């Protein structure tokens, strides 16, 4: 009896070791990763199926706000050009809107701040697991998109940012369902003040039904495109290109 128990114990330990190294080997295999990734498409389609196109993310009251809203990723782009903009109170910052649009344009911060604005107190969920509730103030992205006028070919909106990780610029992209959503805004105010530098001054994206890495900070250019493959690493965002995060950050 003892020998059988020992045998089973040894087999069990051996099996778990094999399974673990097997999982690591599977994780390195491109075809297995592709298989796992096919679930990403399923997840996104299933979410879209059960989610009303304009279903709103929960909005909170001021009493629900986090005492401290931490920043993540870049706390300051740190370039000379950005430092000069910051020193000038972003007076000369320009937001360029181009790509597959009928009327490419450049807007100053004064022009953007003069546009109709939306205020929302929402929960920011980081892919790491933490959440913070903050108040955002900014122009609905739909107003900017409508002003520029999308070409029929446009499928995605890409946000080009002033911050870099190593030699790569940060960028992110969303599709038109999220881009035209009423809570998707380019925020220039946070918690009743102008957007602070660690949180993306002077302009950051709020796309409230997606995880934090989609919420591009230091936005200097919005580009409408038909396809994401030609941009940078081709996967539609900095973290998607560099660390294989999902393009759909709705989960």
């Amino acid at each position, binding site marked *: 009896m003892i020998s059988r128990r020992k045998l089973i114990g040894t087999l069990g330990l051996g099996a778990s070791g094999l399974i673990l190294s097997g999982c690591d080997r599977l*994780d390195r295999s491109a075809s297995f990763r592709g298989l796992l990734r096919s679930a990403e498409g399923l997840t996104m389609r299933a979410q879209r199926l059960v989610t009303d196109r304009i279903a709103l993310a929960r909005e909170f009251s001021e009493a*629900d706000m986090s005492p401290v809203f931490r920043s993540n990723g870049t706390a300051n782009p740190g370039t000379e050009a950005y430092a000069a903009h910051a020193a000038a109170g972003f007076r000369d910052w320009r937001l360029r809107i181009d790509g597959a649009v009928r009327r490419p344009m450049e807007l100053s911060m004064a022009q953007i701040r003069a546009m109709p604005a939306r205020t929302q107190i929402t929960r920011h969920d*980081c892919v*790491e*697991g933490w959440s913070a509730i903050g108040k955002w103030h900014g122009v609905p992205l739909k107003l900017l998109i409508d002003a520029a006028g999308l070409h029929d070919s446009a499928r995605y909106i890409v946000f080009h940012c002033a911050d870099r990780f190593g030699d790569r610029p940060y960028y992110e992209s969303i599709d038109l369902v999220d881009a035209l959503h009423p809570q998707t805004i380019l925020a220039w105010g946070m918690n009743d003040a102008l957007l602070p530098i660690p949180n993306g001054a002077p302009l950051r994206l709020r796309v409230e*039904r997606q995880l934090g890495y989609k919420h591009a900070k230091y936005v200097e250019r919005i580009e409408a495109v038909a396809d994401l493959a030609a941009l940078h690493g081709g996967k539609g965002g900095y973290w998607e290109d560099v660390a294989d995060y999902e393009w759909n950050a709705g*989960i």
Partner: protein
Amino acid sequence: MAGDKADDPVAGTLVRRHRLATRIWHWFNAVTVFVMLMSGLMIFNAHPRLYWGQYGANSDPAWLEIRGTQRQGFLRVGNVQVETTGVLGYWRDADGRIQRRAFPGWATIPSRYSLSGARRWHLAFAWLLAAGLIAFAASSLANRHLQRDLLPGRGELGPRHLWRDIADHARLRYPTGEKALHYSTLQKLAYSGVIIFLLPILILTGLTMSPGMDAAWPWLVDLFGGRQSARSIHFIAAALTALFILVHLVQLILSGPFNGLRSMITGRYRVPGPKEVDA
């Protein structure tokens, strides 16, 4: 646990015990739950702190935290802190390097730190876990396996009956003959608790981690008292699932691993006679 054909089982005979659906789901889960738990620990490593309420980040009070200092690892739950050097918060990886992540590489998928990798495993296998649970629950309701074999019957939850069951378990006195073909009350509570409570809670709290699902079904995150509460409950339910598996494996070894494994693979179970435990 189909004891139908064994009205009067003789010790030593082989009887049909587990249905095909039960056996398939068991081994399917042996893989799926294993992947979910271990990839979940890696996801936890990205932010090894738990909170109650709607929000929670580094400057907010955490009720559970695993952290590594210069030379030690610690687990803190509420005001109680225990040193976990070597296992949690401070451990050596396969290459002998000191790591200060919460859970060690031997407990996570992948074994090296990768939040995106763990998410890919976790979010793909979550579909399998949910599909398996729904299929098993539907078939078990239809063929009355759940009502007949898994839910405690009337009278089984009375204090005297429960106490005797607990005492039998504590003395490692396992049933023989006909009685061995039915689950004991504690077994029923454990199995039905996992199927009816733990797994559904894990799946539903898992869904509330998704900002997209929270917009679609805001009532779900309310049900658990906010996203960070839901994340805490997700972790607690996962810990209880791991505890269930541990007890399950210990019980298997104590009650006769060969007979138990055979019955879960072939469906056939040798009826244990008096004074024999292992087959």
